[in-house]
């Protein structure tokens, strides 16, 4: 979505809603995964992130009230699932990830979302799109800063954090 020209306010709202709702689903999925692999610390943070994103989604839904939002097919969203841009990729989770990793993942998502809205704000000639994109960028930046502060409470993972003494590769 980086070199994106937004046609109007409903299009920006539609894209933002899709981005947020997919992020909610992804954090929910990651929380489930971490519960299954008995990583309760990461699961708890993903649940918290899911709830935060759900609240933000509701705000955008309220902003969309009364507007006819366009349907945009999935292939017109150009985010890449492989890296953390705008929506966290499925491959971002690791069963041994620490709270530090979990928050870093979320920081990357927020940072790329903020960059995206900054670009939209810069490129648009429509005042209402510019104003909305500015607000979304400011909000993403603020949440990003908050996540960085929260991450300071957790230690930087040691080298070898993903070394498993009971690895799944077991053929006998």
């Amino acid at each position, binding site marked *: 979505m980086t070199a994106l020209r937004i046609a109007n306010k409903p299009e920006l709202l539609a894209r933002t809603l899709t981005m947020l709702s997919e992020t909610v*689903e992804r954090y929910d999925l990651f929380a489930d995964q971490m519960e299954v692999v008995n990583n309760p610390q990461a699961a708890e943070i993903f649940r918290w992130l899911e709830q935060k994103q759900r609240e933000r989604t509701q705000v955008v839904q309220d902003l969309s009230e009364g507007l006819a939002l366009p349907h945009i097919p999935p292939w017109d969203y150009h985010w890449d699932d492989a890296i953390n841009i705008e929506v966290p990729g499925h*491959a971002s989770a690791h069963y041994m990830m620490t709270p530090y990793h979990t928050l870093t993942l979320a920081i990357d998502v927020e940072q790329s979302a903020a960059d995206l809205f900054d670009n939209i704000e810069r490129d648009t000639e429509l005042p209402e799109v510019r104003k909305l994109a500015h607000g979304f960028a400011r909000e993403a930046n603020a949440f990003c800063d908050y996540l960085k502060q929260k991450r300071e409470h957790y230690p930087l993972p040691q080298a070898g954090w993903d070394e498993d003494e009971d690895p*799944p590769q077991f*053929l006998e």
Partner: protein
Amino acid sequence: MENANSCPSLKPNEYKSGTKPVWCPGCGDYSVLLSITKAMSELNLEPENVALVSGIGCSSRLPAYLNVYGFHAVHGRALPVATGLKVSRPDLTVLAAGGDGDGFSIGGNHFMHACRRNVDMTYIVMDNQVYGMTKGQASPTTDPDWDKSKLTPDGTKINPYYPLVIALASGANFIARASSTDPNGAAKVLVDAIRHPGFSFVHMLSPCVTFRPEQKEWKKMVRPAPVEPTTDAAVAAKRLMTDDNFFLGTLYKGNRPAYQPELKSTVEHLSELEQGFIL
């Protein structure tokens, strides 16, 4: 922007069942599940008019996670079950799914003949070049020098199977490759595959992060094929024979008519069907 559907009546997550997937964190199959639901949403398919048949293996768990009719078949036998279903219920949208071991080894013969028969359905093979559910043995698509399995400590030394080439030679009417690293692009490929008449084969690259962690690098290797889909089998053959396994998109769109035999009888009661099997 190209619309498959101006306004889907169901959102992608409404095609999911309440069952939570138990794949490993980071597994590509999560993303494939998302792509399938996005494609069904874009095509505005009613869940009760869709059936997904799978084989055995990690990826074959898919039917449990979807809110459409599902059949978790025997190992390698997704295609004959799906073929029978589509032939007897041509009104349904029939999808078959599984992994590379299920589809190309245990079910390899069924794969060829399903391509040859050209029944109107879509077969999605999530290829991770390993038997993941049985803890990491070489599969038909594994490179000959992969030596991480204790069963093949020096590698298999056997050339891998080239599913797209086999599909073309056997008569598949639509051949494409997609990647779990790009679920939105994969959704587009699936929409095209489901819409295309006849047997559609989608080779879905889906990394196994547990037994083939090096496959995380696939995200850097996949790229859109720099060609348009061709209807010429000879052009497609050259294209697929020189393919490096990482070109994404629709590579061949044939124009053979789908096979659909005339249904000779209709059965109103199960007891009538049973009559034919009484010895």
